[in-house]
């Protein structure tokens, strides 16, 4: 039984906009050229709601709401860029920078990194909290790819693309809280994986320098993400 789609109208940043009832605030905002920063969201993957970069204010709700996982509702009044929101976004981003080791000048993704891009865009000039600098492993056992956990922001894009698009479910998350990390199979070396097809999708969806191709030097790792919405569209058609 297919549901009939309903058109609903709402206000985002003072602008009256409309969308289908099954669209998220983020989708409708983007259709209307309203910028909302994101990190864990990626067109073509299921929503995760983990990074909290995309938070917005909805009138009548005291807490902030992630726009990537919240569906629009008739009459909603949404603010995407108040000073309060920006302050929280900068706070969250700062926390991400303290979590692991993000020294851009030594990273193959320098200049192409979404984390770095967000910091520039949001005007994060300094971090008040102390850096934790945990010692995380680097897995270079795969022929073509490297996983450097020091750069990972746990956005789970790699886990989702591997499971949802490639169908291999090679990547997953182990551990809780601050000790959580991405693993390959049941915590094996990537090079030993029997499930990894070597497609490289995870590398290209990874927003940072955590997953990269071998043989790239500083600032050389550019990622191609366009394949994802395209693949999805083609699959839905067939």
């Amino acid at each position, binding site marked *: 039984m297919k549901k009939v789609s309903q058109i609903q109208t709402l206000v985002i940043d003072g602008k009256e906009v409309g969308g289908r009832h099954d669209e998220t605030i983020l989708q409708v905002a983007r259709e209307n050229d309203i910028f909302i920063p994101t990190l864990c969201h990626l067109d073509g993957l299921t*929503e*995760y*709601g*983990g*990074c*909290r970069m995309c*938070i917005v204010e909805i009138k009548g709700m*005291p*807490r*902030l709401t*992630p726009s990537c*996982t*919240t*569906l629009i509702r008739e009459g909603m009044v949404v603010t995407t860029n108040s000073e309060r929101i920006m302050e*929280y976004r900068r*706070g*969250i981003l700062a*926390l*991400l920078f*303290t*979590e692991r080791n993000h020294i851009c000048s030594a990273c193959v993704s320098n200049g192409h990194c979404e984390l770095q891009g967000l910091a520039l865009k949001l005007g994060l000039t300094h971090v*008040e*909290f*102390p850096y*934790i600098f945990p010692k995380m492993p680097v897995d270079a056992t795969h022929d073509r790819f490297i996983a450097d956990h020091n750069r990972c*922001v*746990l956005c*789970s894009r790699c886990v989702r693309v591997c499971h949802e698009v490639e169908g291999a479910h090679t990547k*997953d*998350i182990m*551990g*809780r*809280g*601050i*000790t*959580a990390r991405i693993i390959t199979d049941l915590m094996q070396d990537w090079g030993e994986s029997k499930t990894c097809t070597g497609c490289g999708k995870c590398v290209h969806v990874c927003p940072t320098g955590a997953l990269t191709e071998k043989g790239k030097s500083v600032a050389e790792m550019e990622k191609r993400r366009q394949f994802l919405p395209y693949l999805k569209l083609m699959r839905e058609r067939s």
Partner: protein
Amino acid sequence: MVLEELQEIAKIENERQGQFEHTINVCVAAGCLSCGSQELLDAFKREIDKRGIEKWCNAKGVGCLGLCTAGPLVSVEPSSTIYKAVTVSDVPEIIDALTGSPVSRLACSSDMSFFKKQQKIVLENFGAIDPERIEEYIARRGYESLFAALRDMTPSSVIERIVKSGLRGRGGGGYPTGLKWTTVMKASGPQKYVICNADEGDPGAFMDRSVLESDPHRVLEGMAIAGYAVGADKGFIYVRAEYPLAIKRLKKAIAQAEQLGVLGRGIFNTTFNFEIKLRLGAGAFVCGEETALIASIEGSRGNPRPRPPYPAEHGLWGCPTLINNVETFANVPTIIRNGSDWFAGFGTEKSRGTKVFALAGRINNTGLIEVAMGTTLRDIVFDIGGGIPEGSKFKAVQTGGPSGGCITEEHLDIAVDYDSLTKLGSIMGSGGMIVMDSTSCMVDVAKFFVEFCMTESCGKCVPCRDGSAQMYHLLNKITRGQGRMQDIHLLEKLCDLIKNTSLCGLGMTMPNPVMSTMHYFKDEYLAHVIDKACPAGVCNMKSGGRQ
């Protein structure tokens, strides 16, 4: 099974019990078991055999008697004498005393406030029935409510009774139970589920565990009634694997109930089917959060997901799912039996009925209590709880565990209910109450809860995952005498950020212990930071030169 058969079981059981002039009830819930109550029960049985008095004297294991601090506990009927800290060597003396006056050396005074000021609904069978025998539950009118619901009431009238009773969820949030049931009933779908949340992960809380260990059938009956009301034929109990005794008794209870036909197919010769399965949790606190719990039952990693959609519409395997706490379900049979007006007669206007609390910390009567909502904290701590150990002074009581806050002396006279506690910056939570006196350092207490949340955070969302680690780091610094004023400001900022941007309840409420101690005990924070001194003498201010 028809009503007559149920009543016949009750009759036979009552006759069996009636032939004994004296019954010796030995608590075999986890607390007393851990101080040797099983050996004690065996010793009573042996002594009864030896004296050949088994015709008129019976010894049996029963559920929790409440005063866990003084275990093993024994209650003797019909005189209702309660003996505390009984050892095997006391057995002959207690049996001698059955026909005379109680052994005064061991007896608790019968008008002790601990027993007198309580109001028992959920715990009504505690200390009276053997949790491993369904007959004893039936003898106390067990499964009659299920029968009444199935045979005499429509699902809507069952729900109406729950709505009118004013029952609110006992798992922490206090969401109106009747409203939740209505939503699940109205949700469309060929398959619906009922889940009982028995994950109970708050440090210091043991209410749900005691209910499952002492009166498991009450929860099964409540779930079956809920299943009938919302239109579900399958139920799950998600119970943590650290509760082996609760699991054992639940398994036994389910098997007995299925055998008698009060669970399973065609219950009470109606067309209603209801089966209950156990699912064991591996002890993650966050798996008590309903969406994480559902993910865990589905076999996935126990991560919360954003709500809406709520489980009532989109729950287990995408089906409408009713999820309630153990104590919530345990209230249901009594509400069906005695009516909503009766239940609503207890408690305050917005919080009806009673609440079970686990008293712990610096208090004389550590244990399990049930009081009408609206009882004052002062009554709970000083009358029922017997006050603070001698020579010390009350400082605060922490409610709601890692999601709650502290309540100080000046607020002790408030009537405890969901709203009054929230107003004071704490929450009702699931019912843990930790009492603190002058030997507790409030900064250290805050650090304890933050550390708990840091290690229990699932790690999915950034504010909770990293914010907790940063808060812990700052509190650690302050308790080592290395804090600066700026750190207090940073703590405040973090609290605000985490509270407003986290994904699930764990993150949203994690700042509460910090905010509430900073509010009521700012002077202690300042003493640590400015004078480099811990007023309670708990923190080692000179430790560690690192950081």
